[in-house]
């Protein structure tokens, strides 16, 4: 009977380590002036440098250096006064020069940390994740495997290469091992990547789109029996392409390793690949016979020695830390922690803030994004922000506030916008959804209601305000529900001398 997660965490202590690769969103590549546009036609963003043509030479993109220093500062790192690129030599067809220009023993940022908070059985708890290094390198090209039975790399008949991605700047952020996470290892891993992603987004240095590969996470995990002071053999799980997958990769690997150890097998030091469908990992290349990368200082590039003024300038430009920003917004908006958390988890904090900045009140902005928009997004299995933008939601909310739309009508407007029927205004016009707010039109309906129920009207005139409900109901019915009830009430009471 294999162990489940609970049994595994009761018997083994995990040691976690995370390597995150971030594609920077510079306009041009790391070492050449080719564009970095995602999704361009194959091999249209290639030149002698990023194709590794004989004779070509790299020149470092200043913006990539600046972005990397910003990341280092945001992660509380020291910025090295002297750093250097090195060549990491190994053969792979994706990699035009058959070496990766990377940083090795002289990275640009070292010794930082990131505090992450998770919910535990005993309440919120903060884990400090130490950052060993932040360094720069270049991405590889992309291969397409053609033929063969599985469509996977094994059994392909041949491969096709597109080097558009080759040379896009990558920043690699490597943690030290995170000890003592116990059964919370998956949550700590997820919280770390989430916080890191939020920081990178707030710095504006990357698109941080895990689904497009601009943020990629490798999970290193090893287990040791609880109480033992030995470190286990680690596996390195690659291809973890969503926050949820980070959590699942850790828990899946936890269970797999625990079961192997339990049945007396040893853990192989290897690269494993995360399988999105099953949440399991499958073995990749064994690292038992470690590649010898023959690192040496890149002779085609010169050292990077950022001066202190530049670093201080960059430090001053650092934006508010996302975790602090969340605390501030929670206070400003006066929302419970749980609500804040659901906004963060749904990745809607930015768009809600943007909506609020456009004039919407926080409560309405939050409830529209988390409620109706999220519901529709769920149905379509896409991110809410891909359906509708902050401007459109803010406009709908403004129309509710001015009484031009009721909540019910607003839902139809939002649905129309999402269905591609145009802007909120256009949807209102096309669907004829406008609230009857024209006073004279409403007054006709109000007078008709009073004429139909004279006794009720008399009671209202005498100060029995609750009695007005029946008259309002009649007006609403007469206008087919398109009137704004509050407006009807206001006009009715005024007409009956009660306001």
């Amino acid at each position, binding site marked *: 009977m294999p162990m489940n997660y609970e049994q595994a965490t009761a018997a083994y202590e995990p040691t976690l380590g995370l390597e995150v690769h971030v594609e920077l969103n510079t306009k041009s590549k790391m070492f050449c002036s080719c564009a970095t546009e995602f999704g361009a036609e194959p091999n249209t963003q290639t030149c*002698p440098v990023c194709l590794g*043509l*004989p004779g070509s*030479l790299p020149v470092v993109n200043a913006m990539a250096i600046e972005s990397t220093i910003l990341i280092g500062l945001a992660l509380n790192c020291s910025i090295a006064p002297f750093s250097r690129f090195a060549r990491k030599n190994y*053969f792979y067809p994706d990699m035009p020069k058959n070496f990766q220009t990377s940083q090795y023993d002289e990275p640009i940022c070292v010794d930082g940390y990131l505090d992450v908070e998770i919910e535990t059985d005993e309440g919120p708890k903060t884990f400090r994740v130490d950052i060993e290094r932040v360094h720069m390198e270049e991405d590889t090209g992309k291969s397409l495997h053609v033929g063969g039975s599985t469509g996977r790399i094994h059994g392909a008949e041949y491969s096709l290469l597109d080097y558009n991605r080759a040379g896009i700047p990558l920043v690699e952020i490597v943690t030290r091992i995170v000890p003592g996470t116990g059964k919370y290892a998956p949550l700590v891993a997820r919280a770390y990547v989430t916080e890191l992603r939020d920081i990178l987004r707030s710095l504006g240095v990357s698109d941080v789109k895990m689904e497009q590969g601009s943020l990629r996470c490798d999970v290193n995990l090893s287990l040791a029996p609880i109480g033992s002071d030995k470190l286990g053999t680690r596996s390195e799980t690659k291809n973890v392409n969503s926050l949820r997958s980070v959590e699942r990769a850790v828990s899946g690997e936890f269970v797999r390793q625990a079961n192997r150890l339990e049945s007396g097998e040893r853990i192989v030091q290897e690269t494993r690949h995360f399988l999105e469908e099953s949440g399991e990992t499958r073995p990749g290349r064994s690292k038992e016979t470690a590649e*010898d990368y023959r690192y*040496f200082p890149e002779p085609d590039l010169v050292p990077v020695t950022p001066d202190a003024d530049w670093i201080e300038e960059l430090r001053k430009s650092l934006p508010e830390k996302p975790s602090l920003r969340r605390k501030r917004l929670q206070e400003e908006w006066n929302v419970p922690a749980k609500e804040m958390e659901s906004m963060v988890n749904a990745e809607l904090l930015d768009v809600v803030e943007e909506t609020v900045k456009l004039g919407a009140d926080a409560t309405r902005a939050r409830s529209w994004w988390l409620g109706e928009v999220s519901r529709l997004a769920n149905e379509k299995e896409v991110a809410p922000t891909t359906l509708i933008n902050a401007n459109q939601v803010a406009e709908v909310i403004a129309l509710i506030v001015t009484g031009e739309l009721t909540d019910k009508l607003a839902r139809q407007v939002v649905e129309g916008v999402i269905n591609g029927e145009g802007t909120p205004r256009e949807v209102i016009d096309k669907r004829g959804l406008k609230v009857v707010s024209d006073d004279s039109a409403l007054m006709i309906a109000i007078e008709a209601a009073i004429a139909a129920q004279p006794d009720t009207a008399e009671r209202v005139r005498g100060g029995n305000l609750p009695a007005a409900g029946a008259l309002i109901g009649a007006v609403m019915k007469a206008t087919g529900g398109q009137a704004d009830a509050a407006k009807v009430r206001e006009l009715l009471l005024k007409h009956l001398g009660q306001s």
Partner: protein
Amino acid sequence: MTNIHSTAAQMSAALAAKEISSVELTQQHLDRISAVDGDVHAFLYVDTEGALAQAKAADELRASGKEISPLTGVPLALKDVLAQKGVPTTCGSKMLEGWRPPYDSTVVTKLKEAGVVILGKTNMDEFAMGSSTENSAYGPTHNPWDLTRIPGGSGGGSAAALAAFEAPLAIGTDTGGSIRQPAAVTGTVGVKPTYGGVSRYGLVAFSSSLDQAGPCARTVLDTALLHEVIAGHDERDSTSINQLVPQVVAAAKKLDVKGMKIGVVKELSGEGYQSGVSQRFQESLDLLVEAGAEIVEVSCPNFEYALAAYYLIAPSEASSNLARFDSMRYGIRIGDDGTVGAEEVMRRTRHLGFGPEVKRRIILGTYALSSGYYDAYYGSAQKVRTLLKQDYERAFEKADVLVSPTCPTTAFKIGEKSDDPLAMYLNDVATIPVNMAGIGGMSLPCGLAPEDGLPVGFQIMSPVMQDDRLYRVGATLEAALLSKWGKPLLANAPELAVR
């Protein structure tokens, strides 16, 4: 009237005086190439059409009255290690057979901008690894002084083209002596500029931290004219020096060394140096004293380790630089029979595509960079490099330039040393320290060795970015020798059979 035996400066004057057109001058050289290159084999590719088109353009440019370079319309032979757009660039290797680069090296761009006419690509040791041009995959080049002898290497093709009057100007590249040693054994002039003085962009890398392109010609002034065309800062080469180019043409016209201190390097003489080489070197020193220079002896005690350090650093960098020749993106592909994967095809291609010397150095370099050997070999070699720089710094405190014979012997017989790599490596004992320290070096002919009647080279070395001193001393010595001999040294070379 100008002819192929004229200097480039004379050709330039004749072009300016409209005594001859560039098309006529170019045709004379193309005719000479077809007449003698069957025996010399200086060229791997003659770009007849391209050269005549460039010559025509140069004539038109001159006719337009626009400001032009002194070398506009003068023909040149280009070492096949520099990328020229659309023109075969093989580096003397089978690996690149048929490759036509889609871009120009910066040297070629500058030549084209100056209106210099590129006749074709010259033979060389494969990927510039060698001292005899015997390592070319396309057969050896023969020394015009004696067709059974080597023309030096790796730039034997460029030097032989000059000595055979197939071109008045040539481009070489010098990693450990590949411009200067061929110049010495063919009775021509060659300069390795300060590292970073001429852009390496488009120079197919052998050893990135040592490679430097430079001018070759039959006189010091011609060399200086070409130097000023190709030198200067290039933003595409990170190791390019962002300073004004030394005034080398003015220096070559100065013909005055009064008060200059000329340091004779004690370690670059004596055992291993052919007696006729030492004799001609001594006589040249006497001429410099007569011209008003002061001779001082300097000691560079670490030079005896230079060769060993070079044969670690150069192969190490080469092992990485040549990794890109893997048959995936350009060059030949061997053994892709549909049954094996990319890695096996790489292995097969590199087995047959590289010659023995290249493979020897790749394996040596791979070894020197391997973990476990790095510190003892590559690391130690880099420390020796520091010591060599320090030797030069101390020596340049005592002398304005340093001098030595360019190589220990005159040209040896083709095949004589091909089975003994260590003996072959000794050819570069006097030229290598210059590359290791990044300083400038020149070789000019200083006579024929009495015992074999073959040319002897005189080497001048100058501090970083003081390349003008090479020309000042070189031109003065050249003038003194010329007045002693009554005719240029090359006038003593045997007539080549015209076919």
